[in-house]
């Protein structure tokens, strides 16, 4: 199935793209619905999928030319984690932020009893209240809490784990971490099968709207302007279809620019609410799209214009420093155990060179550097923050790993250090 099948009968340039029904599939949907694809002579054909495993397999087998992917997925593919596939690269990012941590009403009540002020402050502080609940349950001999996320190689998994560990909760031993598909999360919360979860929007807002969940942290509170979804393409496809890929990047970039015009967010909600796309009501989609998030419980609404970002803050640039941080988390939690050269892996998977070349003709400003210090303030009125720490230096990945408080022992950091001089 690997022969280029991107040209239709009459020279039509068809690109098959797989996506998962989440708010941040919007760049693909808008590129198609607003005709940004045809502006560059491309016809996007969108395929709605129900699992990330399907996305991975269909991209691997060539049923898809490109896909809406969780940022860590292409890195995992290159490392052969989960299941080895053809190498997948990231020529652009699609979105920043958009995730949140939501807990059940029952857990929210327990957290408020433990430390109402910390819950009220939200973000990193809320983890401290959770830690007290976890300790109390252990003392009383009760079952550990069950927390959900969507895929092992996801920022949701790493965000949730980081947040837990920051308060001294070992995600592999003190709680029970499970995968729950996003559409089933709200029901699982209601039925008490999970006590909380980290997921992308709109599913946090769905749980709040149904009265079953309370948002205790948003991703923008943990790590402002942090990576979320990316464009994934097979490395061999990118090589064989360079100009076509550049046109896809251009079309998606213009769609992202359109998406970040505040006046367009209402129309975005109307389009995404269709059952062919996300299939969630406009009212709920507008919550994260406008940044007026209801947290639920007794908590006031959040007004955060960066609740999900598609274009501003150089959102589409595939920063290799994003990749390095995700790699450190794969090592931290022993998903990756065999030592390898971290920067070499980031360089092969994340391809800012392809992004720069593609958008050069759109006249857009593009960063000159491939790496940045993560967690630095994006503007003067913002505070620098990185999971409550000063920031992340991608050139010091191993010493960063050594300094993290809770870490799975299975990955040998000395062996990694030897490969990362």
């Amino acid at each position, binding site marked *: *199935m690997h022969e280029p099948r991107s040209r239709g009968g009459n020279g039509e340039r068809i690109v098959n793209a797989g996506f998962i029904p989440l708010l941040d599939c919007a760049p693909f949907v808008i590129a198609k619905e607003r005709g940004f694809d045809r502006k560059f002579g491309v016809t996007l054909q969108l395929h709605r999928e*129900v*699992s*990330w*495993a*399907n996305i991975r*397999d*269909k991209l691997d*087998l060539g*049923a898809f030319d490109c896909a809406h992917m969780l940022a860590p997925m292409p890195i995992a593919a290159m490392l052969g984690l*989960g*299941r*080895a596939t053809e190498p997948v690269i990231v020529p652009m990012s699609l979105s920043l932020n958009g995730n949140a941590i939501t807990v059940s009403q029952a857990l929210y009540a327990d957290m408020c009893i433990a430390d109402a002020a910390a819950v009220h402050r939200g973000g990193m502080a809320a983890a401290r209240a959770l830690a007290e609940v976890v300790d109390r349950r252990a003392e009383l001999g009760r079952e550990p809490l069950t927390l959900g996320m*969507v*895929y*092992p190689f996801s920022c949701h998994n790493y965000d949730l784990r980081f947040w837990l560990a920051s308060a001294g909760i070992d995600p*592999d031993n003190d709680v029970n971490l*499970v*995968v*729950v*598909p996003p*559409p*089933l999360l709200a029901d699982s919360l209601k039925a008490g*099968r999970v006590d909380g979860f980290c997921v992308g929007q709109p599913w946090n807002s769905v749980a709040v709207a149904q009265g079953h969940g309370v948002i205790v942290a948003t991703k923008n509170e943990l790590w402002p302007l942090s990576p979320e979804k990316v464009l994934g393409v097979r490395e061999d496809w990118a090589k064989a279809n360079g100009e076509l890929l550049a046109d896809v990047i251009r079309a998606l970039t213009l769609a992202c620019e359109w998406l970040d015009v505040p006046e367009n967010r209402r129309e975005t909600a109307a389009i995404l609410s269709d059952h062919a796309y996300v299939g969630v009501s406009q009212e709920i989609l507008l919550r994260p799209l406008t940044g007026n998030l209801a947290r639920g419980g007794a908590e006031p609404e959040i007004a955060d214009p960066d609740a999900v970002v598609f274009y501003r803050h150089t959102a589409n640039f595939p920063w290799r420093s994003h990749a390095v941080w995700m790699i450190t988390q794969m090592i931290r939690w022993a*998903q990756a155990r065999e030592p390898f050269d971290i920067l070499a892996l980031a360089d092969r998977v994340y391809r800012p060179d392809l992004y720069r070349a593609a958008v050069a003709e759109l006249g857009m400003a593009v960063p000159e550097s491939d790496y940045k210090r993560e967690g630095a303030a994006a503007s003067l009125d913002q505070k620098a923050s990185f999971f409550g720490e000063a920031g992340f230096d991608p050139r010091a990945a191993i010493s960063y790993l050594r300094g993290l408080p809770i870490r799975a022992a299975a990955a040998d950091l000395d062996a990694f250090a030897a490969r990362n001089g």
Partner: protein
Amino acid sequence: MDTSLKILVIDETPIRRAILESGLKEAGFSNVTTLDTPTALVQQIYAIDPDVVLIDLENPSRDVLEQMFQMSRAVRRPIAMFVEKSDKATIEAAIEAGVSAYIVDGLKKERVRPILEMTVSRFRAFDRLRTELEETKSALKDRKVIEKAKGILMKTRGLDEAAAYALLRKTAMGQGKRLAEIAEGLISTFDLLKE
């Protein structure tokens, strides 16, 4: 063929689940369990302790199985996706048919391949069945539409049934369209004029 393997089928489509189960049993695999709901999937898999898990691709619970790759600590027998570098065609056939297979670590691939081949052929058979059913439904609908259009022609132009049918057919052929399309057009035009 090793028919003692414990097989778990996860599929929310009842007919397909039944087709697959009977196929496996006919082939001599007597140890087949089926699951229709994704609730508490991980616990159920621990309890059943299968050698092979078959799951349809329309099932969001595939990602739940994916995590089981990662949880070697908690699982007695680690589960991995059935993949063989040398046998990409088998995987392609399975994905195209809409199914994927997971097997316990250490199980010989040759023991699983006949199961996967059987599954793929049953999934395809189900697909054909579904297509045929849709075709039958649409043929039935076409016939009703044509009957109605004939009735309109008979009433408004005083034709007999054979002549009305012949006129519809001639028009369809002349315009290179399906008979049912012409009939539908006639009915909607007639409804417009009737008011």
